[in-house]
């Protein structure tokens, strides 16, 4: 049916809830910026954020709080698939549309939960990156640069995104070792840094001191701080030249670093991801999407890779200094069908943003 469930916001506006780990850290505030921009452009949406810190019980509670607050749609970045069971149930009970971002329920590992999502008339789908692929690509950048002793820094044990990337790193190394039995690469046990820069520094230091031959580091994520810390540690040890670093978090001075070699490559741009989730829910509430029950939209969002100062210049221009979509484009986007939206998402690249900005 049209206009979804829940109770409409007092002033007749559509209310969409965002359940996010944090709307205030580096990546989180970027996500917030783009969603707020979209809401402003659309004019008839009110957004409400709840930070849940990826603590399972807070994740499920956040959905309940958003439903109780009268949201008609919720987008969520959960931390584990099982939380979605409760989230879907809450949304079904309260007739609230639901969509995931940065995450997708694993059909292989949790077929029951996946099925519940498919069956749900309110669960729409997920917008996510291909994390294993991302991991593989980053690792290959290193391997091709000749790095063989690679240190790995994760941020939090068991985090779904991290696990995906880790899988990718491992796969790349395994593949490499299979092809080059006489030039094997090793990947360290991950050190966990939390989300602080000292954590990253400490983890990097520990890895360097435990393995004097270390020639590459992957601070896999955690919002950018662990990466900063790791770089600081490498600089402190005077190993900037001998240790290559790749990461999925962006740095303010990335261009410089790519130039002077203290960074080998990065992937990013993923902060647009929740935008597509948001659009899905928005359209569902408007009644534009009808085929929700029995369906699961799996929207794959591409990572953007930057491995030279050149690349970064454009990235900075179209993704840092401004948003990749203008207000008009955002309004346009809200009118797309699911399939078109998916296409739109998969199309995003630095060149695409540059081209659109150019016209």
């Amino acid at each position, binding site marked *: 049916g049209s206009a979804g469930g829940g*109770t409409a916001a*007092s002033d007749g506006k559509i209310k969409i809830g965002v359940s996010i780990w*944090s*709307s*205030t850290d580096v990546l989180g505030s970027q996500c917030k910026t783009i969603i707020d921009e979209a809401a402003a452009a659309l004019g008839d949406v*009110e957004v*409400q*954020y*709840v*930070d849940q*810190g*990826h*603590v*399972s*019980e807070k*994740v*499920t*509670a956040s959905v*309940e*709080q958003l*439903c*109780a*607050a*009268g949201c008609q749609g919720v987008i969520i970045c959960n*931390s*584990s*698939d*099982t*939380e979605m*069971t*409760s989230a879907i*149930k*809450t949304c079904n009970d*309260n007739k609230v549309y639901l969509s995931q971002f940065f995450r997708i329920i694993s059909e292989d*590992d*949790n077929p*029951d*939960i996946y099925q519940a999502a498919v069956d749900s008339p309110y669960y729409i789908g997920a917008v996510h990156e291909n994390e294993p692929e991302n991991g593989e690509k980053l690792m290959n950048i290193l391997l091709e640069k000749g790095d063989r002793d690679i240190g790995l820094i994760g941020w*939090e*044990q*068991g*985090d*779904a995104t991290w*696990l995906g990337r880790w899988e990718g790193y491992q796969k790349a190394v395994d593949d490499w070792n299979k092809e080059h039995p006489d030039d094997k690469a090793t990947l360290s046990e991950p050190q*966990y840094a939390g989300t602080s820069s000292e954590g990253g520094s400490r983890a990097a230091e520990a890895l360097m001191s435990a393995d004097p031959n270390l020639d590459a580091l992957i601070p896999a994520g955690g919002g950018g701080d662990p990466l900063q810390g790791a770089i600081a540690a490498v600089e402190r040890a005077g190993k900037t030249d001998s240790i290559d670093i790749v990461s999925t978090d962006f740095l303010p001075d990335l261009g410089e670093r790519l130039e002077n070699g203290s960074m080998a490559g990065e992937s990013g741009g993923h902060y647009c991801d929740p935008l597509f989730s948001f659009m899905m829910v928005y359209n569902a509430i408007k009644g534009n999407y009808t085929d929700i029950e029995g369906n699961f939209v799996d929207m794959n969002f591409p990572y953007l890779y930057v491995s030279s100062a050149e690349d970064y210049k454009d990235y900075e221009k179209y993704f840092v200094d401004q948003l990749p979509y203008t207000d008009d484009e955002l309004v346009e986007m809200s009118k797309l069908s699911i399939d078109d939206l998916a296409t739109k998402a998969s199309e995003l690249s630095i060149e695409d943003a540059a081209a659109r900005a150019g016209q």
Partner: protein
Amino acid sequence: MEKVKAMALESGMKKENMMSMIRAILPVVGLVLVFLLFNTLTGGRMTMNMSLVLSQVYVIMIASMGVFFIMTMGGLDFSQGSILGISSIVVCYLSQYDILIAILGGIAAGALIGMINAYFYVYRKIKSFIVTICTMFLFRGFIKYLTTNAPVSGSAKLIFYDTTALKLTCTLIILVVGFVAFRYTRFGTDLRAIGAGEKAAMFAGIRTDRMKFWVYTLSGAITGFAAFINVIKVGSVTSSGGNQLETQILIALVLGGMPISGGAKVRFENIIVGSLLYIVLNSGLTMMGFSTQMLQLIEGIVFLVFVAIFADRESLSVIK
């Protein structure tokens, strides 16, 4: 003359009783007022979505009861979050086999951690906050270890138990049992006596060490049961599962008017009023839709104001 003095004292005592009565019902009144306030501010959503709001209260309320017993004796427990995490993991593992075994396993795991706390606190005479901060760290490490490769997920059947009726019933049963034990058996009196003067309690025949040991164990067990309620809703445990439960409990109990050093003036109502007040404040503020920063700023101020109003200071000569 003597009589006059006695009468004056009597009326003074009445006044004092009145004061302590007011102090006792103040949190309840506060709770009602806060509820009405937020209900108005959120356009009646609070009552409309009562079951959603309440859904967060069960775990806190159950776990607070154990901590309430501990704090009545003058102890502290900062390891509650880790207890919830570990017990939830145990419940998840065992739920693959049998739900009853899972519940018992969660309780046993919680009790075991409680015992470890108690051993160091009671028999090695280390301050309870030192012990429990160390064990909090220690068991958080275990949780992280056990969730390294993936969150620990429970059986898919668990979700069937996630009904308001079950959670409410469990919570009510536990509260009623706790209330009767605390209010109508010597258990409560003994706890309060230990909090009010441990040595004297010992000389009045209370086995204080044994009591402390078992209360810590009991508190662990209760939180171990809360883990079941937690898991049926959440379904899995991540490395941060249960994080900061101890802080939430502490705030809830103090909001409920509990003197933090325990003793004779604690009341069982502290648990109920406190956890409800905490959840209503928390959900209410969240539902009003502030930005995170603003929410936190307001939350901090509101908590301080409420604690300043509700905290029982009269019975404390020294506040640490």
